């Protein structure tokens, strides 16, 4: 293996694949970056068995070949090189990285144990990186951290006709977000993707209005964009029927400026956070009261709002409300609630992002 590569290209490639380097795995190869040199193409791969990422960058090939080097070391080393021209070659069972007058010899890891890259062949709907990022951002925050329910630690990725629907819940609140793709897919498909995979995917996306192809395979889902393919293992299991909790009728509603609502809840949260006391949302004759009482004291705020339906009051976790409000894209939000039923928070002018949360019984 022997190639010349531009330092900037190499760093860009490593930036993408290093998200799939295993931390402290018993199999050393999983902590490595796999380098494959073919005709003027360098393919970088990392695979921690949860996530696998492969990306291609241009290079000048002097001799094809493959090697695995320690991922962290390689990644940090190439960032610290002062010159833009880097030569990488195999010498005496080591990989030598040369730049200017510098030579570094990296011990290699055997390629024998390297897992095969998971294959995903079945194409489903494609979408832009913008849309994909929005779907990830508006859903993934609502997953559960409780290990006992693996289903809830993932995000449901659902394909139905022409749209993607991402749903996440920790069983106390649920976030639903959808995006139209302009294409149609005949079958309804459901995948449960581990939250960390989606978060890492979001960080890899170029956000340049690039089209992302989505493919599935055996218990795997892959996202292909530019010269990169990002593949994640799926969570096995059945996601609960979210439609039954999402689409319900709450009789009382108000509309409020999102920023105003966020700030009010943040002030209430100052009082409630230490003892995790709920915040009371009370709507009476067009007056919205947001307040809380804790050992630290009491907060109370009033707003004049558009009211729909009867007077109503219920208590909620301020953190749960803020989680949603901070990720949503809208100036005005609609808050629908009724007694001990789940409340619905959504942008006032759109149904693309819906969030339901259960009240706290006090």
């Amino acid at each position, binding site marked *: 293996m022997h190639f010349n590569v531009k330092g900037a290209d190499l760093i860009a490639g490593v930036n993408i694949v290093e998200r799939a380097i295993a931390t402290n795995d018993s199999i050393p190869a999983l902590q490595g970056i796999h380098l494959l040199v073919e005709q003027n193409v360098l393919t970088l791969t990392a695979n921690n068995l949860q996530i696998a990422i492969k990306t291609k960058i241009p290079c000048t090939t002097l001799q094809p070949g493959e090697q695995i080097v320690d991922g962290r070391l390689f990644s940090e080393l190439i960032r610290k090189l002062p010159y833009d021209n880097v030569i990488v070659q195999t010498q005496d069972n080591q990989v030598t990285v040369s730049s200017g007058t510098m030579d570094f010899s990296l011990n290699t890891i055997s390629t024998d144990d390297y897992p095969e890259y998971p294959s995903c062949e079945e194409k489903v709907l494609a979408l832009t990186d913008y849309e994909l990022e929005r779907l990830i951002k508006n859903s993934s925050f609502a997953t559960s951290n409780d290990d006992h329910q693996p289903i809830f630690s993932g995000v449901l990725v659902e394909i139905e006709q022409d749209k993607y629907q991402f749903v996440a819940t920790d069983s106390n609140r649920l976030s639903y977000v959808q995006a139209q793709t302009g294409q149609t897919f005949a079958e309804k498909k459901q995948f449960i993707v581990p939250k960390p995979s989606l978060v890492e995917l979001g960080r890899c996306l170029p956000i340049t209005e690039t089209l992302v192809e989505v493919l599935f395979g055996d218990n795997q889902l892959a996202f292909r964009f530019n010269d990169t393919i990002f593949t994640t293992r799926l969570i096995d299991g059945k996601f609960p029927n979210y439609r039954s909790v999402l689409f319900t009728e709450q009789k009382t509603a108000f509309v409020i400026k999102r920023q105003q609502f966020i700030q009010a809840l943040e002030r209430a949260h100052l009082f409630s956070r230490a003892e995790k006391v709920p915040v009371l949302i009370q709507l009476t004759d067009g007056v919205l009261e947001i307040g809380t009482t804790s050992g630290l004291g009491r907060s109370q705020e009033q707003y004049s709002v558009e009211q729909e339906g009867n007077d109503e009051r219920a208590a909620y976790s301020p953190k749960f409300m803020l989680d949603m409000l901070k990720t949503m894209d809208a100036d005005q939000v609609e808050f629908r609630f009724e007694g001990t039923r789940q409340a619905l928070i959504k942008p006032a002018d759109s149904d693309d992002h819906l969030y339901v949360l259960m009240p706290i*019984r006090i």
Partner: protein
Amino acid sequence: MRTIMHVDMDAFFAAVEVLDHPEYAGQPLIIGGRKDSSRGVVSTASYEARKFGVHSAMPIAKAVVLCPHGIFVPGRMERYQEVSRQVQAIFPQFSPIVEPLSIDEAFLDMTGCEHFYSSLEHMGQSLKRKIRAETGLTASVGIAPNKFLAKLASDWQKPDGLFVLRPQEVAGFLRDLPVGKLWGVGKKSQALLHGLNLHYVRDILPHSEAWLQAKVGSALGSQIYHLARGIDERPVVPEQQAQSIGHELTFSEDVDSFPFLRRQLAELSEKVGWRLREQDFYAKTVSIKVRFHDFRTITRSHTLPHTFNDDDTIFQQALHLLEGVKLEPVRLIGVTVSNFSQGTQLSLFSTLDQSSSQVNEVMDGINRRFAPGTITKGRTLPSKSD
């Protein structure tokens, strides 16, 4: 200027006994032990018994001599605590700042709440009336600008007293008090002050703070200098929120029957659950404590991912923990819940917790109306087989 209210239940334990045994009314009643108790000490004497010279901390044997016709009963601490909780549940309706001093005493900082009442007397009456209505007991109330004076005031017209000490009356009120009434002056300090020819508060007033400090020590000297002038800046400190609620039971002989222990666990769980709900808390953690015949004591606990306040969850978790313990003869068993929060986050997908909490609600209603333990789950009762 602050407004501090001190509430002191009148002969509390005795009053509770009279409440539960109306035939004791008007009788000299002595709580602490039966007449033949050789080691007992009087914990409370009714006002009728006090006329015979019986007072708390006196050996029962001596009380028997002083008051041979008295009614002697052993204390029922659990019952007193229960009534105490009823009383304490009233205080937050009057002020958010409540400092419970003991089972039958508390300070309430009423500063800023004065305008809710036509007068300070009316404020005190309202509280006394409320306690009377909800528990059937009388309390003595003192209202004054600080804790020291409020406590003196509540003592002034006991029992069933109400005394308001206004700032302009303080100096006159204190003048003729014996120095022993000053907060912090016990038997020893009192003797020390008497030795300096200081018998009444008025005797202290001519002396400088430095002089007093030189004579009785800097802390006490400064304290009595200020108290003699009616100055006491101590704030009313609300009680720290309870960190855990638990009940335990010591057996008269060591027990190794699992069905018996299971039954005790069920009963303890109900008691714990009841208190948890009375305080409007939800818990996340259940612990059990087991003391074996050889005094080896172990605790086991489990934290759930969700909050709960129902007896069933407490019992199931406690039982599960007990099942994990290698059983040897047991002399004590206890159940504790901790990790509290207010309210419980409802779940989108489960309706399971609903029915259990409804059962608890109904049972609590009955138990609140009659007495705790009036209605209980079958699992706390002995089965035919044992």
